[in-house]
């Protein structure tokens, strides 16, 4: 398969212990039984490590035909409010200021920020809703551009997560576990399916700036226990997104090549001696960087984009590091068949004055998100590219703190939130799942984060139950021991 996917079997501590334990055991057995021929014992010893070797091999090709070959994940960090965007609840306007009924509130956990509140007054959405598209789907007035592509979207209103705080919830959405240390979705795919363009990494990450102050940790695009060259390659939010791309003045490209080859020889010698997978990662990364020197400047150069395309993405598109700029870069990467492009936009954490906060966030993201889908569609790429838009959890239908005429905020809410997908084999124009009249609990077709991840892998042709990596004596999956593919949302 792909060069990147050719992972040689590397001896690790556990394999050494396993091998030697069985080896020593074999010798002891020979002594006990006393009549085993030498060759037989050797044969046995050679046979044992085989199953270990079979494990931890990349898939190479998917289990079945993929409907999506590439993914763009527009992660909206902070917890976008479902009530102000997608989940229209007339009841909230009617019951504005009244207490949330105990039967709705249930015994759900609230965050430390609202747990000392004695009153939980419902708050009506800080905006109006209208119906859009051929299915007359209700959407907020704050996302007119998204509304124009509603017939392409599969809107899942019944997302559910286990976590209520940003970092664990975000790590959970990205890696399937609340603690950092497991590989994220992009790394799993880079490892399992490899790159589709030898000159570019399979997994690229971009953060937009200008959103909010909620930090985001690189654990979200970590390769965890997978070989480290599968971690997300981050393009920086500055004018030169990839540092040191240019060969310094006075150094020819041939010189760079010779230097790399020379270093590689040393690394190979070291690798033979130590069998450390990290050395192999270093070799691969250096080669990739060399290739990226040619491939990346071309991708980052927006000067050849026609004006009407730039206009689609909005006025921010030419400012490096904005969400719009990252969206158009994502499209350019997808055109080059990068498998997984992960964007993060911050600024959805509206604990107070949600009305102004969400207006700012939608202004930064709405036009570019919709433009990305339209642009992929007109290029014929949406057929096999999956676009995902969503955050780590939703927000409460009641006000955080006092509900004042000046405004209010909403707290974190893991019990129901909305995510949309487009292209890549999802059913277009579908609204899936349903919440109660307060957008507080899911009442129909619940989609847990594990189910979401299982479905994502399914679209890429992977059976999530057969996509396994063994680490420290335990077998891991992206979905761990959970996850159901939601076939109802697939076209």
């Amino acid at each position, binding site marked *: 398969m792909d060069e990147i996917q050719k992972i040689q079997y590397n001896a690790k501590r556990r394999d050494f212990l396993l091998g030697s334990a069985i080896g020593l055991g074999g010798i002891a057995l020979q002594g006990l039984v006393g009549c085993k021929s030498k060759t037989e014992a050797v044969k046995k010893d050679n046979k044992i490590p085989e199953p270990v070797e079979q494990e931890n091999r990349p898939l190479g090709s*998917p289990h079945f035909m993929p409907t999506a070959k590439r993914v763009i994940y527009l992660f909206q960090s902070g917890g976008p409010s479902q009530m102000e965007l997608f989940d229209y609840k007339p009841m909230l306007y009617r019951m504005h200021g009244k207490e949330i009924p105990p039967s709705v509130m249930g015994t759900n956990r609230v965050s430390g920020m609202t747990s000392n509140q004695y009153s939980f007054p419902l708050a009506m959405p800080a905006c109006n809703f209208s119906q*859009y598209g051929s299915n*007359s789907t209700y959407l907020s007035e704050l996302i007119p551009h998204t509304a124009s592509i509603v017939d392409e979207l599969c809107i899942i209103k019944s997302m559910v997560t286990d976590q209520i705080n940003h970092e664990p919830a975000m790590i959970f959405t990205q890696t399937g576990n609340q603690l950092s240390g497991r590989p994220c979705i992009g790394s799993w795919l880079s490892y399992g399916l490899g790159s589709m363009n030898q000159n570019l990494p399979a997994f690229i990450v971009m953060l937009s700036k200008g959103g909010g102050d909620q930090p985001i940790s690189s654990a979200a695009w970590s390769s965890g226990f997978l070989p480290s060259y599968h971690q997300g390659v981050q393009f920086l939010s500055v004018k030169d997104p990839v540092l040191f791309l240019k060969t310094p003045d006075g150094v020819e490209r041939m010189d760079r090549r010779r230097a790399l080859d020379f270093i590689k020889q040393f690394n190979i010698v070291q690798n033979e001696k130590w069998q450390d997978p990290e050395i192999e990662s270093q070799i691969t990364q250096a080669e990739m960087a060399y290739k990226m020197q040619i491939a990346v400047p071309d991708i980052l150069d927006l000067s050849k984009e026609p004006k009407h395309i730039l206009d689609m993405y909005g006025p921010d598109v030419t400012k490096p590091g904005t969400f719009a700029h990252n969206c158009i870069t994502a499209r350019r990467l997808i055109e*080059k068949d990068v498998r997984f492009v992960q964007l993060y936009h911050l600024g959805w954490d509206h604990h107070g004055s949600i009305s102004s906060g969400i207006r700012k966030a939608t202004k930064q993201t709405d036009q570019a998100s919709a433009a990305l889908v339209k642009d992929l569609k007109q*290029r014929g790429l949406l*057929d096999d590219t999956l676009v995902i838009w969503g955050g780590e959890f939703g927000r409460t239908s009641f006000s955080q703190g006092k509900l004042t005429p000046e405004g209010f905020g909403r707290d974190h809410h893991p019990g129901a939130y909305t995510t949309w997908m487009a292209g890549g084999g999802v059913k277009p124009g579908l609204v899936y799942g349903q919440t109660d009249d307060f957008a507080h609990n899911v009442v129909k077709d619940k989609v847990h984060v594990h189910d979401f991840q299982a479905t994502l892998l399914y679209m890429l*042709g992977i059976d999530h139950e057969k996509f396994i990596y063994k680490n420290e004596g335990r077998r891991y999956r992206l979905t761990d021991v959970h996850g159901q593919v939601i*076939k109802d949302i697939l076209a």
Partner: protein
Amino acid sequence: MNLDFIGRFHPLMVHLPIGILALAAILEYIYPKRTSPAQIQLVLLIGAVSSVSAAILGWFLSLSSEYDEDLLNKHKWTGIILSFFTVVLWAWKYKGTGFSKFKIISNLLFGSMLLFLVLTGHYGGSLTHGEDFLSIDNLKDSGKNASKEAFVPATGTNESVYEKLITPILSEKCYSCHNPNKTKGNLKMQTYAALIKGGKTGPSIVAGDALHSELVKRTLLDLDDKKRMPPKGKKQLTINEITLLKWWINNGASEKISISEAIKNDTIRAFLAVSSQRSEPSLGLPSIKKADSLVIIKLKEKLWEVNSISKGSSYLDINAVSLSSLSNQQLNVLQEIDDNIAWLNLANTQINDEAFKFISQCKNVLKLNLANTSVSNMAVNDLKKMSKLQYLNIIGTRIDDAGLMQLCEMGFLKNIYCWRSKVTINGVENCKKKYPKVKINNGDDFILVKK
């Protein structure tokens, strides 16, 4: 007393003559020395009496007219002849103990009796279990159908609900008693017309009213109710299957109503999701020989991106994304694997119309991306040879309205992307009118529709 009822003892009685007459033959031919003529006579007498009574009971049962006439007649007449031979044989043995010279007559009688015994038994068995009961093929089939629920294909939403969803359920759970050979309650179910016609109780379906349709009503009766279908002890319909039947009848029980109509209903969609659990997306191409791995290595060395569509598939996804300077000549390397190519991406390369002499030979290509190449109408004739093409991307090419119109004629083509080519809005409109099934995307699909 009802003759029909007495007739139901026929299945009990028939097994006696089979055993007893076989015993007589065993005594006569295998243990002649240990058996006295009187003993043989006695056994034959019991055999004769039981076969005659079985025949009479059988005749009563046949009055219920639930069976295929042709097969029933065969069974009836072989049975009557068998009874006749048993009586004659007994009489011959009883009277003719002295004529030991005429052993040959006794042998002939025994032979004929055994022959008719086998024939009657076989026809009787066919009546009860179906004519194909004794066949190896049937055995294989029944293993396949052992799943709990009738299998439903996930694809083909335009197919008929009756054909794809209802028939498999009836076939698995109802046909064994309601077929042209065995027609319980005078109801045959194997054709749509017969199903609608119904049986003894009248029509089995009241279109639009599932709960007054026998077909559904009887599946909901108490398990001990004698009208319950399928009867106690037989494989029952699942809740999902009953739900589907109900939906189908409530929506007119038409032969033509399509699956796409059915999946608008939440419950039915859920049912289909359960039933199609196993079907994963596939290319739908015939299985062919794998591509030579040496050729694949050669391609990769030349910077082609080559990937299997899926594990075990012989089909390839071939991509020239790393080869922007690709020209016509460089396509030659694909020649050795032309049949294996299912997805072909030649976007942004230097190929031109000449290349299609070769490209059109790749007959299994489903997706072809020619974006931003200098392809023009000259290539269209060659392109049309690629009969399996489903997706065609010609954005930024020189193909114009005339070329698009020709491309639309291709049978399987579902999606054409022609943004920034020489195609005009009018050209797209004309094609859409003439070929409404082809989705043509010219980049102007999105208008804010507010309601």
